[in-house]
């Protein structure tokens, strides 16, 4: 059922260059409707750039991007369908949450003020206090509630839980999941940590070195990969039939992360399912070089 959903986000060869730096390169990805997609990647991988391109806050320097069926554009009807919360959680520090509700009511065609008040009261966040005096977690909740009050069809969140303590993080994600359960909402949220998002997300976009390494439903992506453990030997036979993502060798043993291209026939290899964290680290290690080498070369000297 889910796979036949229309795509909310569709990009093809999407690129963004700032004067000398390539922030995003040839990104091709699809996010179907109703997904909560984890946009994962190390710092500087291009997560923020991708989100800003999707929100229409930046213009691509190459490729195509379609969000909700059209290019992101300066059009009130389009903007009404999109919610974006930047990493810094921009709010008017000297205005109260209630003031922000007023702002939203004046600037949006659809506006569910009651839901914001109810939600914030439920979290014991004062409505009449200036938001500058609230904690980071409370501000994130205010920003999320305000964004959801627009009743957007696509919600883009840049590192929304990075600054939150575990309880606030849990509340935030529960709030988010509840909104998606209401139907009609698709979410992309970025993080450099997967653990936070693993249970709430059902879709994954993995960015590393400004390129998309992986994109798809988490169940599908996991099913497409396997870990092979066996005595140390030449991997050319494996590489012929499968895509080798990452190979780790000790003196006697080889551990291979592969994207499965067919059945593994060589009985020397013991095949095992791969966990999400292992998979993500495998792809990041492949591209990130020294920063992740300590994660991929464990056991090298043993």
């Amino acid at each position: 059922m889910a796979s036949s959903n229309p795509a909310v986000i569709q990009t093809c060869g999407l690129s963004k260059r700032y004067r000398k730096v390539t922030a995003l390169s040839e990104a091709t990805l699809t996010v179907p409707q109703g997904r909560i997609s984890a946009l994962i990647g190390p710092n500087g991988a291009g997560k923020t750039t991708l989100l800003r391109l999707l929100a229409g806050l930046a213009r691509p320097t190459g490729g195509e991007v379609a969000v909700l069926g059209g290019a992101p554009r300066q059009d009130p009807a389009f903007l009404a369908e999109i919610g974006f919360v930047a990493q810094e959680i921009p709010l008017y520090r000297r205005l109260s949450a209630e003031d922000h509700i007023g702002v939203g009511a004046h600037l949006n065609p659809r506006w569910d003020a009651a839901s914001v008040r109810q939600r914030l009261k439920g979290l014991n966040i004062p409505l009449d206090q200036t938001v500058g005096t609230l904690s980071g977690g409370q501000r994130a909740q205010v920003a999320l509630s305000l964004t959801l009050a627009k009743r957007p069809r696509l919600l883009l969140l840049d590192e929304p839980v990075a600054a939150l303590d575990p309880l606030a993080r849990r509340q935030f994600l529960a709030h988010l999941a509840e909104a998606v359960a209401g139907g009609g909402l698709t979410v992309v949220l970025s993080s450099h940590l997967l653990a936070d998002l693993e249970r709430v997300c059902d879709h994954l976009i993995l960015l590393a070195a400004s390129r998309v390494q992986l994109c798809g439903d988490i169940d599908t992506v996991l099913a497409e990969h396997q870990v092979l453990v066996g005595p140390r030997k030449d991997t050319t036979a494996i590489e012929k039939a499968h895509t080798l993502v990452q190979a780790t060798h000790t003196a006697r043993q080889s551990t291979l992360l592969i994207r499965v291209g067919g059945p593994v026939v060589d009985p020397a290899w013991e095949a095992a399912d791969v966990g999400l964290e292992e998979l993500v680290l495998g792809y990041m290690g492949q591209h990130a070089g020294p920063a992740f080498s300590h994660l991929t070369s464990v056991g090298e000297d043993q």
Partner: protein
Amino acid sequence: MTWLVWRQHRNQTYLAAAALAAFAVLVLITGRQMASQYHSALTSCAASHTCGNLANTLILGTPVLSLLVTLTVVVPCLLGVFWGGPLVAREFETGTSQFAWMQSITRSRWLAVKVGWALLAAAAWGGAVSALVTWWSSPVNALNHQNFQPGQFDIQGIVPVGYALFAVALGIAAGTLLRRTLPALAVTIGVFTFLRLVIGQDLRSHYLTAVTTPFSFLHAPPSPKGSYWLVSGGVVGPAGQVANSHAHGGPGVSFGGVPVPIDNMPSACRVLVFQSPLKFGSCLAAHGYRGFITYQPASRYWAFQGIETGIFVLLAAALIAVTAIAVTRRDA
């Protein structure tokens, strides 16, 4: 959007309104005193037939008050610094522009409403201060005929409105391009002061061709009617205009307000300079030297006000256009 603009800026609006009200009270009270002082002086001088000399005997207002009124020349710059500079830059700094831009409102509309109200407020405050100053100065203008002079010209009439619009537009544009409030303020002060000086000192006197009137050194220089603006004066000798020697450091003397370069005068006359201005004048006239004054007649006052206001309004419009392009075309 207007609701948001008001909610964001209402405190500074109240503050500015309070400052304006305080200034208005001061100006209205002292202005009435000054007007009645002037009228009673007129009545008494008419009785004693000494009104021709009134400008030399009557001093209107106190020095402190005159200074305060003169200082209103900085009001447009203050508006540019406190209203223009932070308007967009502050939003960029705190990221609140991104909050606004993710509501169902286009960036161009967001900017249009913010800039529109800022310019309207600038015009209102600049105009109100100018109106008060103009009214307050009317007895002084009638008495001293100085309102065309640099300094007075800049704080009366409609030019302060043009300056205020320009200063606020400059602040907005600098803030948008630099994306930071403090540098925007510095640029606003610098560019505004520079342009005001350049236009006031070098450009203004050329808006319309000045009137030149020659005179003989046997008499005092002519005094055109009303609040004229004396742009320059000098000496024409038998061989044409005499260079102004004090422009390159030579000694000069003022003949009724007209500079006379001593070094370039006939040596026979030079010795008379310190003996008697009258003899010096006769000597110059005898040697074929004549003086001239170049001035803008009082009748052109409003034309000049209009031209100068127009220049600053056009500059403001250009800056707003640049701002609009930067906000809508550039990545957020």
